[in-house]
């Protein structure tokens, strides 16, 4: 039997006929005959945890919504903008109806007035795929008034964002969806109590919701059999960087980084060696090559000193300068900081400037510890996790590759300028113009 659930087929099932031929929408028919609380109970029993980053138990989160307050909303987070993450895009491109089926199921389970899919603006083709899938589902009676005679009216609005990473943070997503600048709000109140238009709202990632139909079809116990004690099921891992076969690979959470990187990805291409692994998106602390046997489950990656995050694993080979990698990481979060709180707005920029000075060979010896100090002052002091998302990986780069930062200071410049693929970005005289 295949280890895959969500992407257990070749090609795509964009056409509803292909999806139905593979048993699609049967699980919705079953769900509509169940009690709403039993659906949530089944998801809870499965042990499914959110695939958006934080890994919160999905059934538990759904059970926080008060059942007697209307309107209530479901928001699907398809903002997918954490660097190195591209799994939700593949799920939407290849299996959009699993997402639609999951949305109608969960909407019914929480009694949602409407569901929204917040998809990042850059995903134009994927937006079109979802629009077409929803249209087909509507024509077959899976969306709309009185779905399949159940008495439940299902509405799905597909909302395209316009380019702002912070809108992936759930409260910023809600601000953006309400027509404001996409800035985070302080919690509590949590969205389950006061979310969209101050009404109870469930926010879940694409992969989380698309998994629900399989759990309804085969049962919570079936799903809970797969995976480890606390990390259940499969995840779609985005594998990128210096590997032979980058791409998305769905694996049960009993497997290891080595299974993914070497088994699926074919390892680092010939002639190069592994230097670093970024195990859960650009906001997660870097791991070293000797940690390649770490399990892919949430607990193992945490025990190794990092985070499972968004499920994207990025491979860095020995050509790359870690200072440049840290600088590029910092620049991303500076660009995306919404500016609402001081430690994030000022701290990320300050950290970026020190990193730039180190790379350019302008930094003094004491600036290395100053950089760690800046990170330390950001950590835990921001309104939303974006500040930490810069400080954590930067601090880890410095502590785990300290000798490399030291060499920049000692040698008054970048020792990897000839080989690192980031050099032509940072040093114009290394511009690689093809002949």
């Amino acid at each position, binding site marked *: 039997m295949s280890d895959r659930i969500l992407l257990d087929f070749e090609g795509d099932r964009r056409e509803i006929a292909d999806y139905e031929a593979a048993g699609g929408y049967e699980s919705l028919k079953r769900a509509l005959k169940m009690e709403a609380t039993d659906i949530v109970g089944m998801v809870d029993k499965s042990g499914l945890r959110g695939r958006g980053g934080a890994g919160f138990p999905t059934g538990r989160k759904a059970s926080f919504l008060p059942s007697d307050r209307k309107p209530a909303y479901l928001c699907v987070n398809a903002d997918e903008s954490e660097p190195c993450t591209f799994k939700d895009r593949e799920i939407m491109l290849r299996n959009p109806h699993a997402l639609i089926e999951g949305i109608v199921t969960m909407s019914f389970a929480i009694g949602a007035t409407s569901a929204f899919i917040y998809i990042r*603006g850059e995903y134009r083709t994927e937006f079109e795929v979802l629009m077409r899938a929803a249209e087909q589902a509507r024509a077959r009676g899976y969306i709309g008034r009185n779905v399949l005679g159940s008495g439940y009216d299902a509405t799905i609005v597909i909302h395209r964002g316009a380019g702002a990473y912070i809108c992936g943070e759930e409260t910023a997503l809600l601000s953006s969806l309400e027509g404001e600048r996409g800035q985070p709000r302080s919690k509590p109140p949590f969205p389950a109590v006061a979310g969209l238009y101050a009404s109870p709202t469930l926010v879940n990632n694409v992969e989380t919701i698309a998994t629900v139909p399989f759990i309804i079809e085969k049962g919570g116990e079936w799903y809970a059999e797969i995976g480890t004690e606390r990390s259940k099921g499969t995840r779609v891992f985005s594998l990128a960087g210096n590997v032979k076969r*980058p791409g998305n690979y769905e694996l049960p959470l009993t497997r290891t980084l080595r299974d993914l990187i070497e088994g699926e990805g074919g390892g680092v291409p010939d002639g190069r060696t592994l230097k670093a692994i970024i195990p859960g998106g650009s906001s997660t602390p870097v791991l070293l090559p000797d940690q390649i046997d770490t399990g892919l489950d949430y607990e193992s990656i945490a025990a190794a000193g990092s985070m499972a995050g968004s499920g994207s694993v990025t491979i860095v080979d020995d050509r790359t300068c870690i200072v440049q990698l840290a600088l590029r990481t910092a620049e*991303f979060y500076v660009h995306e900081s919404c500016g609402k709180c001081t430690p994030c707005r000022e701290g990320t920029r300050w950290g970026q400037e020190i990193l730039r000075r180190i790379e350019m060979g302008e930094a003094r010896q004491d600036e290395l510890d100053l950089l760690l100090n800046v990170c330390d002052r950001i950590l835990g002091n921001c309104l939303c996790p974006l500040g930490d998302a810069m400080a954590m990986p930067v601090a880890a780069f410095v502590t785990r590759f300290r000798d490399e930062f030291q060499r920049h200071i000692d040698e008054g410049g970048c020792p990897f300028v000839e080989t690192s693929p980031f050099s032509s970005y940072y040093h114009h005289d290394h511009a690689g113009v093809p002949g």
Partner: protein
Amino acid sequence: MSDPSTEQTLAGARETRPSMPAPAPEPPRDRPLRDRILDVAALYPESRSAIIPALRLAQEEHGWLPEEAFDEVADALELTPGYCKAVASFYDMFRLQPVGRHEVCVCTSLACTLVGAADTLRAFEHELGVEAGGSTEDGLFTLRTVECYGGCGWGPVVAIDERYHEPLPANEVVPLIERLRSEAGG
């Protein structure tokens, strides 16, 4: 310039990337902008939620967002132009200045740069004769660098007029630009 190991990665990316459907036809613009904005607004419980789609419709109409566009969106959604402008400026995809006919967005985030995005960027700069952020004098191209576009395993990712080209290594830049130039009626 490309290294043999990067060549292997690009070959792998071409195998694993899912096939993309053809672009959907452009929606007709046969009705006034205001009516089309009101149609979208009707999808939401509160019309202000439609500000992003409304700004997008206005941008498609004008090619960018001149003052007039904020007036139109504000009128349709019963907001103020200043509010609409403040919201638009928060998002990277809204153009507060005119842009070239083709907008070229080169991802220079981590994963793409690990497999040669900086070289792809330099190749665009060289061929177009502008730096990132600039537009060509003939008004045909605007070149931008962008952060992760969600195609990381299939990088270097370049989006031209919102459609992804992936992977797009440096040595494929010149033929692509030449094609776009000749389509523009060279």
